[in-house]
């Protein structure tokens, strides 16, 4: 990967972080409501994995999906408008944070039902195979989702049909309050792959370049018709599970410990020390991201809302 590409990844990670922090502020101000799930701390997974895709490849996303959307090239203006329930949002304000889809960019959408996008990813991969379009589907899901029945049925089906799909398990160590230590009787979720007869790989989910390399290999395998790979990216969410989380199930020390491994700081260090990037350059990239998010908020605030009549017309296709 050349420096130009690396700087793009850095920019995307910052954009996600800024988006999330701003969304949280807007929630506090009552401009965003309901509940939402912040991706802060996990940026390297979405960004590294999506960097290994071609623009026409597909992804499926989760309830913690803002990062996936941005990494797949979504317009943060439309995302912010969606969070504020506006007509200019990706889902016209009908889906909100948990249901952003960006079909033009190959993002087949986020789901609030844990695990339910895994079979959908497999279906899209089946479609790719039938259409012989050479595209690959990258399926994001959490460690919690790996324990749903949907996961098992879908991964097995993808494996036996050798479908072009990459299963990206974002292991952030908790499904809500349930630690992976309690939720699994195995050490690594990637071990599951064996049972389906596909490769399983563990990645350091806080290292954007490692996630990129491992995903790239899996994507190539899928594109060549050799079938799916299960990648387990080990990472951590810095914030609570959702807006109602009191965070009683994990210690301050643990959170601090992971924050020392902040994927953005780690990558910054790489850029400064290995790539000898001028710190001023990184500062400029930061400012660019901040500006883009500011503009997104302004755009969303100025947008209108959908009427109930317009909403009624969307229940069925005409």
């Amino acid at each position, binding site marked *: 990967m050349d420096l130009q590409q690396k700087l793009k990844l850095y920019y995307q990670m910052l954009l996600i972080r800024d988006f999330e922090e701003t969304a949280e502020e807007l929630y506090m101000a009552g401009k965003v409501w309901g509940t939402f799930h912040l991706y802060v701390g996990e940026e390297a997974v979405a960004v590294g994995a999506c960097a290994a895709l071609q623009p026409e490849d597909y992804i499926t996303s989760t309830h913690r999906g803002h990062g996936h959307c941005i990494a797949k090239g979504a317009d943060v203006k439309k995302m912010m408008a969606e969070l504020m329930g506006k007509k200019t949002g990706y889902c016209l304000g009908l889906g909100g944070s*948990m249901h952003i889809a960006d079909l033009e960019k190959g993002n087949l959408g986020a789901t609030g039902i844990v695990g339910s996008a895994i079979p959908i990813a497999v279906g899209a991969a089946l479609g790719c195979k039938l259409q012989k379009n050479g595209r690959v589907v990258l399926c994001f899901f959490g460690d919690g989702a790996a324990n749903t029945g949907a996961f098992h049925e879908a991964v097995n089906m993808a494996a036996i049909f050798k479908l072009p799909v990459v299963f990206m398990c974002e292991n952030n160590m908790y499904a809500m*309050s*349930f630690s992976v230590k309690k939720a699994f009787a195995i050490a690594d979720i990637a071990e599951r792959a064996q049972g389906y007869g596909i490769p399983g790989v563990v990645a350091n989910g806080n290292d954007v370049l490692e996630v990129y390399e491992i995903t790239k290999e899996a994507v190539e395998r899928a594109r060549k018709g050799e079938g799916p790979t299960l990648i387990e990216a080990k990472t951590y969410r810095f914030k609570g599970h959702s807006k109602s989380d009191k965070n009683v199930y994990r210690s301050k020390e643990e959170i601090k410990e992971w924050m020392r491994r902040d994927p953005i700081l780690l990558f910054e260090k790489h850029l400064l020390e290995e790539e000898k990037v001028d710190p001023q350059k990184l500062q400029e990239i930061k400012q660019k991201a901040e500006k883009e998010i500011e503009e997104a908020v302004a755009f969303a605030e100025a947008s209108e809302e959908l009427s109930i009549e317009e909403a009624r017309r969307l229940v069925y296709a005409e």
Partner: protein
Amino acid sequence: MPNRIITYAEALREAMREEMRNDASVFLIGEDIGIYGGAFGVTQGLIEEFGPERVIDTPISEVAIVGAAVGASLIGMRPVAEIMFFDFMTICSDQLVNQAAKIRFMFGGKARVPIVVRSPAGSGTGAAGHHSGSLESWFAHVPGLKVVAPATPYDAKGLLKSSIRDDNPVVFVEHKLLYRTKGPVPEEEYLVPIGKAEIKREGKDVSLIAYSIMTMRSLEAAEILAKEGIEAEVVDIRSLRPLDEETILQSVKKTNRAVVIYEPPRFGGFGAEVVSLITEKAFDYLDAPVERLGGEEMPPPYNPHLERELVPQVEDIVETVKRMLE
């Protein structure tokens, strides 16, 4: 003070605590019900008292949660399963609809499935399409399942205790917007029977027939109507199945007008059942066609204004009654 004022969530917790203290076969199973205390805090503190053997945190495995409850119940346990949001009931529907509901009958009446599946339903929290569902009409359609939907803390506690003691599978519908509402709940032991509706307010001009949060909205509407000289009677169904036909019919025979109010989509919803009941058995007493106020036929939207329009609000009830009485 004879009655304490506590929240709906606290009342539910008390019901579980009392039943667990009384009966060693009662246990809780669900996602994040331990140290997290449940997504809405209902099971807070129970793991401290009863330990992880009786307050069982599970992976995200709804099929296995309800299936495990069914299996344990077959050998004499009384599980209370929590499904974090009512929408997720679709995932465990096989266990609930094909197994829990049919086992007793298919096995010639020899087995019992005394499980309770509690779940938060309803819109109004801005949680959009996957976390705002009201699917109680579906489950009320299944022979073998009981379905209850309390509106007040008093009923929540009494009905949950009855549900835990019942030998049938019970779907226990909790409206999210009710969890923090408060009301009197006695210290001493009591039960609210399943299958019994209650007149929550007496009136003579019109019967407002509802359950869960719509009971509360009907009571508010009745207050407003009273100021204009209209006396609405509020019938709280409480138990969708079995349904207390008698209380509903008696009320309609007294007031001669009825509005049925419910949150699920109007079409094919539970309210249609109540309307048919009234037209079949009290038609001659009616001074006006029975009105039905149900939800929009639309998945729950995220935008708060649209979400509000999704389901009947107090002003919709008031307007409907006034139009009826014109």
